[in-house]
C-alpha cells in the first residue's frame, strides 16, 4: 500500500472512529441516563433495608461507600471473588484516570491538576497488568467452578473477553507495538471539542496502528453495550433499596404515590 492509500485509509478510520465515538457516547449517556431516570422514578413502596441498617442518611452514605469502594458484602461472602473483583475494579479506575491525558489539554487546566495526571501515568501503566490478572481470575472462576458455569450465559463470558481485549491491546500498545500518542491526543481533543475540520490535517488523524484500532473499537463497543447489559450494576448499586434505605420505618411513615392513589385517596 502506498502513502496515498494509507492516508486515505486513515482519513476513513478517523472519520469512522470519530462518528462511532459520538454515537457510543450518546448511547452511553442517554442509555444510562434513561436507566437512572427509570430507577429514580420507580417508587420503593416499602422499607426493605437489609438490617442491621443505618438509622440516619449519613450512616447510609457510609454504608454505601463501604460497598462501592471496598465491596464489603462481597468480602463477607467470598474472598476469592472479592480479591479478583477488587483488583480488577481498582486497576480499572487507575487506568481510566491515566487515560485522562488524552482528554485534557494541559492549557485547559491549572498546572497542579495536570501534574496529578502526570503523576498517575506510571501507576496506570502497571495497573494494566493487575487489571488483566483480575479479569483472568474472574474468567477462570466462571470457567472452572461448576456452579459459576451453571449461572453464566454467553454474554457473561463475552463481557470479560471484551475487557480482556481492551486490556491486552492497551498493554501491547504501552509495551510492544506502540502508537503515536501525541497524534492520537490531537485526534481525541478534536473529537471532544467538535473541531471536525481538523481531521483534514494528517496531524489530527487517527494514528494508523492496528492495535489502536482494536483497542478503540472494543472500548466503543463496551460503551454501546453498557446501558443494555449487566454493566448497569455500576449505577444500579446506588439504587438498591436493600442498601440505600434508612432504617426508620417506625419513626417515619413511608408511602409510595401509587399506594396513596390506590388505597388512601378515596378515603380522604
Amino acid at each position, binding site marked *: 500500500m502506498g502513502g496515498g492509500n494509507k492516508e486515505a485509509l486513515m482519513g476513513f478510520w478517523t472519520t469512522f472512529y470519530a462518528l462511532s465515538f459520538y454515537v457510543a457516547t450518546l448511547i452511553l449517556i442517554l442509555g444510562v441516563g434513561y436507566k437512572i431516570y427509570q*430507577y429514580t422514578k*420507580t*417508587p*420503593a*413502596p*416499602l*422499607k*426493605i433495608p*437489609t*438490617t*442491621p*441498617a*443505618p*438509622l440516619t442518611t449519613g450512616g447510609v452514605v457510609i454504608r454505601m461507600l463501604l*460497598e462501592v469502594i471496598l*465491596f464489603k*458484602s*462481597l468480602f*463477607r*461472602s*467470598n474472598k476469592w*471473588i472479592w480479591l479478583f*473483583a477488587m483488583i480488577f475494579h481498582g486497576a480499572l479506575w487507575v487506568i481510566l484516570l491515566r487515560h485522562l491525558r488524552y482528554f485534557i489539554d494541559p492549557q485547559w487546566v491549572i498546572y497542579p491538576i495536570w501534574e496529578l495526571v502526570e503523576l498517575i501515568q506510571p501507576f496506570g501503566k502497571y495497573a494494566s497488568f493487575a487489571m488483566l490478572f483480575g479479569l483472568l481470575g474472574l474468567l477462570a472462576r*466462571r470457567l472452572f*467452578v*461448576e*456452579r*459459576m458455569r*451453571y*449461572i*453464566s*450465559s*454467553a*454474554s*457473561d463470558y*463475552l463481557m470479560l473477553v471484551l475487557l480482556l481485549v481492551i486490556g491486552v491491546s492497551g498493554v501491547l500498545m504501552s509495551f510492544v507495538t506502540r502508537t503515536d500518542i501525541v497524534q492520537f491526543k490531537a485526534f481525541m481533543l478534536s473529537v471532544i471539542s467538535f473541531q471536525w475540520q481538523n481531521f483534514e490535517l494528517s496531524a489530527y488523524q487517527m494514528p494508523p496502528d492496528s492495535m489502536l484500532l482494536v483497542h478503540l473499537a472494543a472500548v466503543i463497543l463496551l460503551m454501546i*453495550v453498557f446501558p*443494555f*447489559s*449487566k454493566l*448497569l*450494576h455500576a449505577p*444500579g*448499586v446506588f*439504587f*438498591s*433499596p*436493600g*442498601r440505600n434505605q434508612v*432504617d426508620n*420505618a*417506625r419513626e*417515619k*411513615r*413511608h*408511602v*409510595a404515590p*401509587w*399506594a396513596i392513589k390506590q*388505597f388512601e385517596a378515596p378515603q380522604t
Partner: protein
Amino acid sequence: MAKAKFETPEFRPYPVIPVIKPGVMKDSRSFVSKPGMQESLGYPGELVDNWQEVAINKLGELLTKYRSLRVYLDTCVKCGSCTDKCHYFIGTNDPKNMPVGRQDLLRQVYRRYFTLAGKLFPKLVGAKDLTRDMLDDWYNYFHQCSQCRRCSVYCPYGIDTAEISMAAREILDAVGYGQKYCNEIIEKVYKIGNNLGLPGPAIRNTLEGLEEDIKDETGVDVRLPLDEEGAEVLFVPPSADFFVEPHVDGLIGYGKVFHQSGISWTMSSHASEAGNFGMFIGSYENMRRVSMRIREAALDLKVKRIVFGECGHAWRVAYAFLNTLAGPFDFLDKRYPIPQHICEFTYDLIQKGALKLDKSANDHRRVTYHDSCNVARATRMGHKPGGQFVIPREVIKACCNHFYDMPSDTIYDETYCCGGGGGLLTDELMEVRVKGALPRMEALKQVTDDHQVTHMATICAICKSQFTKVVPYYGFDMDQIISVHQLVGDAIVLNVNEV
C-alpha cells in the same frame, strides 16, 4: 400423610460447597390454590387461558411499582457470591435453589420481554420465553424460597431474592396459579380472623383453659384477656400461640410478663393474628388488608400501645410495613415504639428492674438461640442497629444461667432460616423443609457437642413449628425447641411486686 420418601441429608464433617445436581427438586411442589381461595384474595380462580399475556403484563406493572424488582433484575452480574448461601441449595444441591439460579427464572423472562438485548439476542444474554415449563418452574422454585434474605446480605448489590420471589408469586396469583397453603390461610384471616381459623369463642375457651393451668401451677390469677376495651396495650400474637406446643408456653410467658408489669393489656378476636401471609405472596393489597385489622382492633379497643408476640415474619410486617400500610398511628402513645416487640417490652421491664427473675428455674436447660431470619435481616429492636440480636439474647440471659451461641457464621445477620418460612410450612413440602434445615441443624449439632446444649429458643411461630417437625430427622427431640417467653415465664417470680 404419606411417609417421607426422601433421605435426610447427612451432617457434613466440614462445610464444603455442594456439587450441583440440576433438577433434583423440580418435582417438589406445593398444592395449587383452589378457586374459592383465589377469588377471596381478588385473583382468578384458576389458570387463565391467556396466562402468558397476563403474566407479562403483570411483570410490566410490577416493574413500574417496585424499584427493588427493577434494579435487582438489571443489576446482577452473576458474580456467584450468593451461590452457596441459600440453605435450600446447601440441603438440596439443586442449582435452581441457588439465589441467582432462582432469580434467573424470572430474570430470563424479564430480559426476553423487557430488555433490548433479550429481544434481539435472547441466546446471547440467556433470555427465555415464558413457556408453560417456565411457569411451572416459577411455581415450584419460588415456593422453595423462604424469603429469608440471607442471600441479600452477601450480594454486593444487596439483591434480595425475597423481593424476586414475592414478585413471581404475585404474578402466579394474577394468572390464577396461586399456592394453596398461603392463600387458604389468608382467606381464613379474612373470613375468621387468623391463620388457623380460630373463631373468637374458640380463642376465649382456649385462653380460659390456659388461665386455669397457670392458676393450677402457680396459684396466681394471671389473666389472658380478650377483647377488653380500654386496655393500655393491644397484644397481637401469632394464632399458633393459641394452638400448639411449644408456642402455647410462650403465650403463658407473655401473660406472666404483662401480669407482673401491671400494665393492662388485651388481645383481640378481630386481630387475633400477628402473621401476615400477604407478604409471602408479594401482594401489597392483601398485606394491607390483613394489616388494617390491627389498626381497626386498636381503634375499637381504644388502646394506647400495640405489642407483637413472637412471630418472625409478623415482626417484619409490623416493624417495617405497618406504619406504611395501616398508619399513621396518631392515636397511640408516642412515648413507645409503634409497634413494639414483646422482647423489647420485656427487656425494658428487665432494665427497669420491674421483673423478678429466678434464673435457677431454667438451670435444667442449656440454651442456644436461633435468630429468626426475618427478625434478623429485615427488622430492628430497640434504638440501635443490631438490637434485634442483642435484646432477645439479653432477655434469655436474664432468665438462664446457661446460654451458648451457635457458630458465628450461622447467627445474627448470617443466621440460617429454619427451612419453613415464607409459605413453605406445609406437609407436602416436607422434603424441602427437612433438607433446608441442614445448615441450622449442623450448627445446633456443633453447639450440642461443644456445650451440651439442650434447648434451642426462638421467637418465631414458623421456626418453632418447623423445628419441632424436622429436628427428629436429625436425631434431636422435638421438645428441645422452646419459646423465649417460655424461659421468661418459667423464671419469672409472680406477685413479688404486690406484697
